[in-house]
Every structure is written in structure tokens, then in C-alpha cells.
């Protein structure tokens, strides 16, 4: 189905996979149930002199017609549970997180996103961290094919870090730093939005994620460390 | 009631028990929130927080409430014997003890806490504090303390009013079953305090 956005992260395909699995299982059940419903109604409409059958559904011979489908529903549920738990574990459980190459701190603030990169020492949360441009003019730059650890937090109220093409979102909470990881698989410029209501201008809290090649990223970091104004060619 | 209905459990008793169940869940929300904060912040037990509460006064108050429950049980027994005068006098004892509890709480304990600089919102004291400092967590303790003791005090007031009106209503010897209902509610008020007391005062 083409309604899902193009995948830009290594996990998006897995997440979409959950969608397709559920879609097909649930789609079949939907069609079958709706078919049974309409069949039941249209074959049982009132006829002149007709008489309804007295079926209570209390014995197995009758109730097996719903118990057997129910067991099938239960088995489908388990299948979905397993698949969704696998994807969830891969994306969210901290111990399963792959070794990361880069770190970046992302702060949600009414009504903008701020990004902080490690300074010359290469470590985040030290004195020389560099926050790029205040407001919405500084964009989040990530290298393609490398794993970046996102340190997410908020300055005032709840926000939610949501990049459609990455396939996931994460609420950001003031006073707490949550970590997620992303491995972009495609270069390009995609939208970063806030998906948790955060005040009157929630609707305008938008920024960009720019996925660039390794060389471009290296020069971006170099410029950042040498204090030059961030100048990236917009595509 | 006509013979339409088959009385299983007397409906008044059933109604009050359901009300008590609902109240327990409301208090459960406060208590669970407090426990979560308490587990996270050992500072709640520090000298400026729980340590600044007067355990002796708290214990006296607990005893007062326990005795008031005993007098309420006696009032119920008297009501079962249809002894209106005895039931009324025990209900008056209960009321006096309930008001004594409130008097100590509002007349002595809270003013003492206020004089030590504790209020439900200690925002002025913590305005210049760094996030995560001990003063802030202590102030959170006092917010919970005033919230929960205040909410419990409100229940003492409501429970006392109920007992008072039930007492007026049984004068002619009718409606004696209401003594049991008022008593059941009063036991809830006691039960909540018995949970709050160790949580707020004793765990330091």
C-alpha cells in the first residue's frame, strides 16, 4: 500500500511490516465476518408464514460455530503479539540497541526544536557541546548508514519527536532524557514534527531532518567545531 | 417497599459499602501517587520533611480516632438493642472525639507546620533552588502531606455531619439501621487514617 511514507530509517520497514501483517490478517477476518453478517441477514429476512428456528447456542453442536472461529482469532492474536513484540524490542529496548557511531541531543521547546552536537572532544553532555542555531533555522543533520543515538528531552512541556519517514515517534519529557537510535538509509530532507499537543502554536512546531552522506556530515561537524556558520546546501 | 422486591442484602448497607469501595479507590489514587514519589525520593524521610512531624501528637490523634470508632461500635450495638438514648450518647462521644481530632489537626499541627515554613505550595522557598535539589523534594512531601491530610479532614467533616444528622433522625426510635451505615462510613475514615499515619509520620 502506497499510503505509508517512504522508509528513511533501517527500522521503518520492520514497522511497516507489522502493519502489513495485521492488515492482511485483520482484512481477512473483516471480510469473512462482514460476509457472515450480511449472509445471515439476507437469508433470514422475514417471509410470509415463515418461522424462526429455536437455536439457543447452548450445546456444542451449535456453539462450535463460534468457538472454533474464536480459537482461530486467538491464534492470530498470538501471531500478531509475537511479531509486534519483536519489532518493539528491536527499536525500543535499550539493551538491544546496537553500538552507536554518533550522539545528538534534541530538545523540544515551545515551539521549536533545538539540536546539540558534541564539541571537539566528541562527547555529549560536556562543556564544549555545540547547540546549533536557535529557533527553527538550524536543522538536524544525520549521516546516512551510520547509527546515531538520539538523546531526547524537553525544556517546558511534553512534546513528541516524530519523523514520519523514520517510522516512529517518541514523546519528550522535561526533566528526563530518553534515548532512541536511528540509522538513516537514504539521503534527503524530511520533516520533523511535534506530535503531542504543546500549546497554541503546536501546529507550527516543525523542523527538518537532513540525512547527508558521510563526507558532508564530516564537513558539517568540522564547520561546527571551528565555529563557522552552518551552511548546508539545501536540496 | 411493596412485595415487588426481594430484599437480599439490605439496600442501605449495600449502598454504603459501594460508596466506601469508591472512596477507597479515590484515596488509592493519592496513596499510590505518594508511594511512587516516596520510593523515588528518600528525602521524604528527612528531618525537614517527615522528620518535622510530631509523632507524639500524631499518635494521640490516631488513638482518638480509634476510640471514636469504638464508641461508634457501641452506638451501633445500642441501636441494635433499640436503646435510643444510649445510641445517641455514644454518637455524641464519637462526634466530640472527631472534632477533637480535627481541632488538634487544624488548631495545633497545621499551624506548627506553617510556623516551620511548610505550606502546600512552597514555591517561594524553592524559587531560587536548582532543579532536583533536596528542598524541592521536601516541598513535594509537604504538598502531599497537606493534600492527603486535608482530604482526610474533609472526610472527618462529612462523616461527622452524617453522624449528626443520623443522630437527629433516630430521636423517635425510627431509622435505627442508619446508625450502622454512618458507622460503616466512620470506619472508612478511620481506616484511611490508619494507612496515612505510618506513611506520613512513621517512615522516616
Amino acid at each position: 500500500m502506497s499510503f505509508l511514507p517512504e522508509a528513511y530509517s533501517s527500522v521503518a520497514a520492520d514497522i511497516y511490516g507489522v502493519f502489513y501483517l495485521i492488515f492482511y490478517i485483520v482484512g481477512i477476518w473483516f471480510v469473512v465476518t462482514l460476509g457472515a453478517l450480511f449472509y445471515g441477514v439476507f437469508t433470514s429476512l422475514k417471509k410470509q408464514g415463515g418461522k424462526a428456528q429455536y437455536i439457543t447456542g447452548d450445546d456444542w453442536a451449535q456453539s462450535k460455530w463460534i468457538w472454533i472461529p474464536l480459537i482461530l482469532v486467538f491464534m492470530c492474536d498470538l501471531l500478531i503479539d509475537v511479531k509486534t513484540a519483536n519489532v518493539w524490542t528491536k527499536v525500543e529496548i535499550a539493551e538491544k540497541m546496537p553500538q552507536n557511531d554518533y550522539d545528538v541531543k534534541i530538545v523540544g521547546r515551545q515551539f521549536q526544536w533545538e539540536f546539540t552536537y558534541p564539541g571537539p572532544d566528541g562527547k555529549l553532555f560536556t562543556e564544549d557541546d555545540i547547540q546549533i542555531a536557535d529557533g527553527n533555522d538550524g536543522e538536524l543533520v544525520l549521516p546516512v548508514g551510520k547509527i546515531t543515538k538520539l538523546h531526547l528531552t524537553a525544556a517546558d512541556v511534553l512534546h513528541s519527536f516524530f519523523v514520519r519517514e523514520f517510522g516512529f515517534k517518541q514523546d519528550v519529557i522535561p526533566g528526563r532524557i530518553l534515548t532512541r537510535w536511528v540509522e538513516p538509509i537514504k539521503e534527503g530532507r524530511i520533516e520533523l514534527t511535534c506530535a503531542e499537543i504543546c500549546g497554541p502554536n503546536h501546529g507550527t512546531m516543525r523542523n527538518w531532518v537532513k540525512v547527508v552522506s558521510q563526507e558532508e556530515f564530516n564537513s558539517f561537524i568540522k564547520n561546527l567545531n571551528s565555529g563557522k556558520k552552518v551552511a548546508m546546501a539545501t536540496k | 417497599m411493596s412485595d415487588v422486591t426481594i430484599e437480599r442484602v439490605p439496600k442501605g448497607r449495600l449502598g454504603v459499602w459501594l460508596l466506601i469501595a469508591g472512596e477507597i479507590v479515590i484515596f488509592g489514587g493519592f496513596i499510590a501517587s505518594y508511594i511512587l514519589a516516596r520510593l523515588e525520593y528518600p528525602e521524604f524521610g528527612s528531618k525537614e520533611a517527615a522528620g518535622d512531624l510530631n509523632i507524639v501528637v500524631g499518635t494521640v490523634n490516631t488513638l482518638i480516632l480509634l476510640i471514636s470508632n469504638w464508641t461508634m461500635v457501641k452506638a451501633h450495638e445500642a441501636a441494635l438493642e433499640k436503646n435510643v438514648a444510649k445510641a445517641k450518647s455514644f454518637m455524641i462521644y464519637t462526634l466530640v472525639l472527631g472534632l477533637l481530632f480535627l481541632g488538634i489537626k487544624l488548631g495545633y499541627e497545621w499551624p506548627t507546620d506553617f510556623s516551620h515554613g511548610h505550606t502546600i505550595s512552597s514555591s517561594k522557598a524553592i524559587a531560587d533552588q536548582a532543579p532536583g535539589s533536596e528542598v524541592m523534594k521536601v516541598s513535594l512531601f509537604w504538598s502531599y502531606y497537606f493534600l492527603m491530610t486535608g482530604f482526610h479532614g474533609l472526610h472527618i467533616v462529612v462523616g461527622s455531619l452524617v453522624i449528626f444528622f443520623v443522630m437527629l433522625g433516630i430521636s423517635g426510635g425510627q431509622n435505627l439501621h442508619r446508625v450502622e451505615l454512618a458507622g460503616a462510613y466512620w470506619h472508612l475514615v478511620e481506616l484511611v487514617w490508619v494507612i496515612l499515619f505510618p506513611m506520613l509520620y512513621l517512615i522516616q
Partner: protein
Amino acid sequence: MSAHHEQSFISKYVFSIDHKYIAKQYTVTGMIFAFIGGLFAVAFRTQLAWPGTNIPFIGVLDGMKYNMLVTNHAMIMFFWAGMPILLAGLGNFVIPLMLGADDMAFPKLNMLSYWIFFVSAVLLILSFMAPGGGAAGGWTMYPPLNAQQGVDPDANFLVNLWTGGSLLILAVAVEFASMLLGGINFLVTSLNMRAKGMKLMDVPAVVWMINLATVDFMFSVGPLISGAVMLLFDRIFNTGFYDPARGGDPILFQHLFWFFGHPEVYVVLLPAIGIVAEIVPTFSRKPLFASRWIIIMATASAFIAFIVWAHHQFVAGIDPRMAEFFSITTIIISVPFAFIFFAVIATMFKGQIEVKTPMLWALGFLVFFLVGGVTGIFNGSAGLDMYIHDTYFVIAHFHYTLIPAVFFAGLAALHFWFPKATGRMMNETLGKLHFWITSIGFNMFAFPLFFSGLYGEHRRIFNYSSYQPMMADWIINIRHVATIGAMILAAAQVLLFINIILSATSGEKAGKNPWKCNTLEWVADSPPPHGNFATPPSCYRGPYEYSNPKRSGSDFWPQNEQ
């Protein structure tokens, strides 16, 4: 029975203690609020489809006004329309009648419940008039935003109380207190005042479901009442329960909210299923299939409802391992509902179905709720929810559960019990026309949103023009279609209004039992007098003995006939 005594105007029409009249008070209040909530929806949908439109009485929406409308739309539809109609209104009407009782167990408490509810409605309306307008922080009231918005920390507590956010929190807390008292009445009446001979399994499914809903409500609402009080104190007394800068925890509120919030969904849904479980056997002339198991499964789902709440918080920053547990329980809850669904469908097989208006609405519920039910699996699955959470997919999903429950099942109930309540039949032609237009409007509005939601359109955005992907032609078209659908849905309700007025004044006289139904309410006169039954009925059998071969001469067997 001292039932037929004279009543003054005030005690008959205002402070009535008659359960049927209180039911009407709840229902009418709920319908008025549903209409207000619907107009709010039309207003903000208009802004979405045609940004910058000058909307009558409201003006051009900015972010604040837009947030205010969506916040209060949800609040009104859930707490001032869904609950009063489906729980309080329906419960008050059917419980004593179906049990063969003369009134509720505590009629005065019942009156008090309604008037406390009325106070909450007044508080809600006052919240719009407060300085700065109504609450605008989302209906879930998440702090820290909702602990701050409109609050001046240096002002005294009365100033902060007189703000939209504080008044709304107060209104919600008062409303819950009212429903709590009403719920006590329901449970005591159902346990204590059943007709002679009526065993628990002879109690009709709808009464069972309303009581299960009540239990769900009473045992889940406590934490939210305490949570709401703490949020109110954060606003007016400047406490820091939810303020991370002062040691508080914003996620705590989410747990307190959703511990209630999820059972609350079943509070609305279970009565709706109960309504359908009454109407389908009546119009199919067949017993409710495996009725005993339907009750058992509904009870199971009412209990599982207490351990699924965190599926609303998968992406909120809770422990990921916890999310896996809640994902499993959420998907498993589909099993009892699948059973009930299959059983209701099986009830229709080999029956003699007559599609009168109540049956049409019930069938509408089944078809549309199925869409809502199966899409719930997508949201309940944590691995996918991290993408579709807070998108229009979720919006479409819960409108496909709540509109079938509140509108379709609620209107099925209205058409079904209207003859009993007023003594006159509702107009079939108008009713069917209303059904079809409502269905078209509803599906036009809700179905396309699944697609824009899948594309990642996120909710509560007053103007999408700053989002390039969201300005694609097909998404804009979806917004237009959805908005026109919502307008049709709202406009269609005029037909309902006309139908109610026409039928109540000049409808065909109904007689005692127009649908040839088994349950005890049809033994009473239409409308039943104060005190309900001339002679107290006794109960000899279950409520679904239709077309029983042991009964000769008629295809139904009322519970009170030997």
C-alpha cells in the same frame, strides 16, 4: 403501592424522583451537549478543510481557539453526551423497568445525581466564559501543559480557579462524583430489586452490560478524581505534583488518567453492546445465541479493561518492557469481543428478521463497529503504534468505535424504547432516512482519515500549510471530503429532532408491547405511570425465549407469563 399520588409541578418536572423522568432529563441534556460538541467539530473541521474561513460566532480560528474546540469537543462528547445518554439515561430508564421494580433503590439519591451532573454541565459552560477562554490543552489534560496554560503563578488561587482549564477539571471531577452516586444506585437496584423469581441469568443482557460498565467506572474513576484534584492544586495552589522542575512527575498523571480512561471506553461500549443484544433477538424472533457465554465474556472483558491502560502511552516514555505486556493484554481483549460479535451474528441466522428502524440502527452498529474493532488491533500493537500514535489513523479508529456506540446503538435504543417512554411509535420513514444520511455522513467523515493517518498526518494541527507532505492534493481532498461528511452528519440530526417532536405529539399509539418483546418493561403501560407496574410482575424464565416450540400460538414468551 403508594405510587400514583399527586405531584406538584416542581416535583414532577424539575426535582423529579421518578427514574423514567430522570432518564429523560439525562438523555435530553446529553443530546443538547452532543449537538454542541458536534457543532464544535464542524467548526474545526471547516478550519482544517478551508483554513482561515470566518466561522459564524467563532471567527477565524487561531491555534488557541482550534485547540480549545478540539479539547472541548472530546470532553463534551465523552463525558456530557456519551456517559449521560448511554449509562445514566439508558440505565435509569431500563434497569427498574426490566427488573420489574417500581423505581430505583434510592430515588432521592438518583435525583441528586442528576442535579450534581447539571452543576458539572454549568461549570463546563462557565469554563468557556472564563478569561482566556476554555481549556485548550487536549482532552487528556496532560501536565505540565495543562498545569500551566492560563495560570499566573503569582495570582491568588481564585484568579487561577477562574480559568478555563481549572473550571474544566472541576467540572469533570464533579461529573464523576455524580456518576459515582448514580452507579451505586444502579448496582444496588440490580442486586436487590429484581422481580420475584428473577435469577441473575434471567436479567436481560443490557442490564448486565450497564452494571458491568458501572463496575468498570466505579473502580477506575477514583485515581482520576485524585489525579484531577492534584492537577487542580498544581494550577491553583502552585504545588508541583506534576512539575518535573519541582520533583513532580508528569507521567504519573498519564497513568492516573488512562487507568480510568481505558475502562471508560468500555463504560460507553458495553451498554451499546447490551442494546444490540436486546434488539437483534427481538427483531430476529430468535433467542440470543449463547446468551450465558455473552455475559461471561463481557464480564471477562470488563476485568481485562483494567490491565490495558498503558497502551495509550506506548510512546510516552514508559518502560518499554511494560509496553510489551500492555500490548499483549490489549490484543487479547479482542477475544471476548470477537465472541460477543460472533454470537450476535449467529443470533440472526435462520431467524425471521424484520428490519424496523431500531434493527437498522443495531445493524449499523455491528457493521461500523467492526471497522473500529479491527483497526484497534493496529493501535494496540506497540510495534506499529509508535508510528500511528497521535495520527488521524487513531482519530478514525476511535470515531469508528464511539460513533457506532453512542450514535448508532444509542439511536437504536431511542427508537426501541421511545414507544415505552412516550406511548407513541416513532416515524419509520423519517427514522430510516435519518439512518441512511447519518451513515453516509459518518463514513464520509471518518473513513478517509484512515488513509491520511497512515500517511502520517498528525492530529491537533490547526493549519497544515507549514507541512509540505500534508499539503499533497489527495490529502487536501481527504480533508474536504471529511469536513463535508461531518457537516452531513451534523445536519442529519435535524431529521431526528423533527422525528422526535412529530412522533411524541402525533405518532401512532404504541400499546403496551409494540415489538412483541419478552422483557418486563413491556408489561407496564406505555408510558408507565409513577411506580411503573399495576401489579408487581413475577419472572419465570430468561428474556430471550423467542420461537420456543413449547409455546404454542405466539413466537414470544414474556418473562412474566407462566
